[in-house]
């Protein structure tokens, strides 16, 4: 398994575009600069600033779409270059193959959120919108790490769809619809969709966030777990069907 993960990391060196996608992590900090500068409020608390730059659209929309693209790319490139046949000849276990891809998505997600947290701090401090405090910085890093760990688990269904397909059109469309659905369901029921459940876990200790109902962590983890397990089993079946 470790060899597979190592191979996946080595393959990443050839994919420059994946590293370019990391730039999407600083999109919200940049928008935050314009938003808070234009609002002209004298004093903005670090938490309010971070809520905008790192805890809102980044985990709800930007990171899931970027990870969805990454999942599709990781699977599609091997199909396109007809490498899968060679991998099956070795033979490599279908599940190990699937989890080696997941390991890349997991690592990438953490890097993405760490970039977002550094971007948020720099955007706030360099423009003097916020003042730096140790507590707020520590909270930001822990929260970003939390997001970076949780979102890949919520994106397992998309990885499973990407693994089951030879093309890229369906996984990409599924990514967009899946993310949009998770975003909309936030207001209706947080325990149906993994991305909504991820948000429930995320906002549990963020001050000033009002939700329609009390947060139930057990239900949120159960939702992510069930979707993850079902998707993994399905991906295994679909990979076994493919010759």
């Amino acid at each position, binding site marked *: 398994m470790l060899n597979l993960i190592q191979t996946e990391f080595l393959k990443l060196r050839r994919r420059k575009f994946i590293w370019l*996608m990391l730039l*999407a992590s600083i999109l919200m900090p940049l*928008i935050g600069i314009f938003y808070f500068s234009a609002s002209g409020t004298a004093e903005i608390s670090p938490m309010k600033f971070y809520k905008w730059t790192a805890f809102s659209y980044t985990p709800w929309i930007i990171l899931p779409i970027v990870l969805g693209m990454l999942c599709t790319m990781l699977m599609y490139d091997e199909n396109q270059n007809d490498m899968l046949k060679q991998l099956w000849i070795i033979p490599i276990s279908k599940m190990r193959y699937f989890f080696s891809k997941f390991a890349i998505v997991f690592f990438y997600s953490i890097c993405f959120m760490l970039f977002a947290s550094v971007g948020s701090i720099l955007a706030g401090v360099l423009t003097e919108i916020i003042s730096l405090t140790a507590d707020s910085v520590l909270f930001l890093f822990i929260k970003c790490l939390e997001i970076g760990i949780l979102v890949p688990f919520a994106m397992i269904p998309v990885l499973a769809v990407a693994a089951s397909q030879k093309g890229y*059109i369906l996984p990409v469309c599924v990514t*967009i619809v899946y993310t*949009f659905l998770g975003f909309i369901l936030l207001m*209706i029921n947080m325990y149906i969709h993994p991305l909504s459940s991820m948000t429930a876990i995320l906002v549990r200790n963020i001050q000033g966030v009002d939700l329609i109902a009390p947060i139930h962590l057990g239900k949120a983890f159960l939702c992510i777990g069930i979707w993850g397990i079902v998707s993994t089993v399905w991906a295994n079946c679909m990979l076994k069907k493919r010759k």
Partner: protein
Amino acid sequence: MKILLWAERLKLKRSKILWITVFSAAMVAIIVFMQGQFLYNGQRYVDQVGWYMNATQSLGSLYVFPAIIALMGSYIICREDQDDTMKSLALVPVDLSKLVGAKMIVIAIFAVSIYAFVYIITLVVEVALHISLLDLGTVLDFAKIYFLEGIGLFLAISPIIAIVYRLKKGYWLALIFTEIYSFMGLFMGMQSTLRFVYPITAVFCVSGYYESTPVQFVISMLSLSVCGTLSLMILRGLNKKHSM
């Protein structure tokens, strides 16, 4: 040109991509309907006349439809290179500028068709929910908004499709660029001046979703015209490069 359009239609018929995009558009309609179940002041959003038709086009245009149009567009325009059929077409010989022109027309028709499809779904739901409260003026007004948004979004996204075609093998770029581009529209819409200049929100102004003065309307039209001209210039430059 007629033959090229016919060939493009046949190619699309063989591909599953149309069904995938139809599925995505239908899913958007379903998701917004689910959002409509949310209570506000003791009343469901979807119970307000016109809310569903309004929310579907605005949410869809900011989050989903631009990405789908860009994906479909980049697929249609780049597939000859991707499938390595460009060499065979060059042997026929097919005029590259006409081929790209035909593909752009197909993408425009596709953009309008997506909006027409979603319009039909939302209209059926609105009729089913409030047939007695729905008047013809509202229905026709939304038909105009949906139709113009289809054309407008095609124009707004066309430079990205053209750039992707120029870059070659950058289908992912189209999607990422378009998603960020349309997502930025969410924030540009908050600015009183920029909303009429930024192409994605300019579409809302041209379609009549945003209230605008004649000057603002002209600015939005200019913004979309610039996008269309830019994509034509990029594709024209490419054709010259190929013909050399």
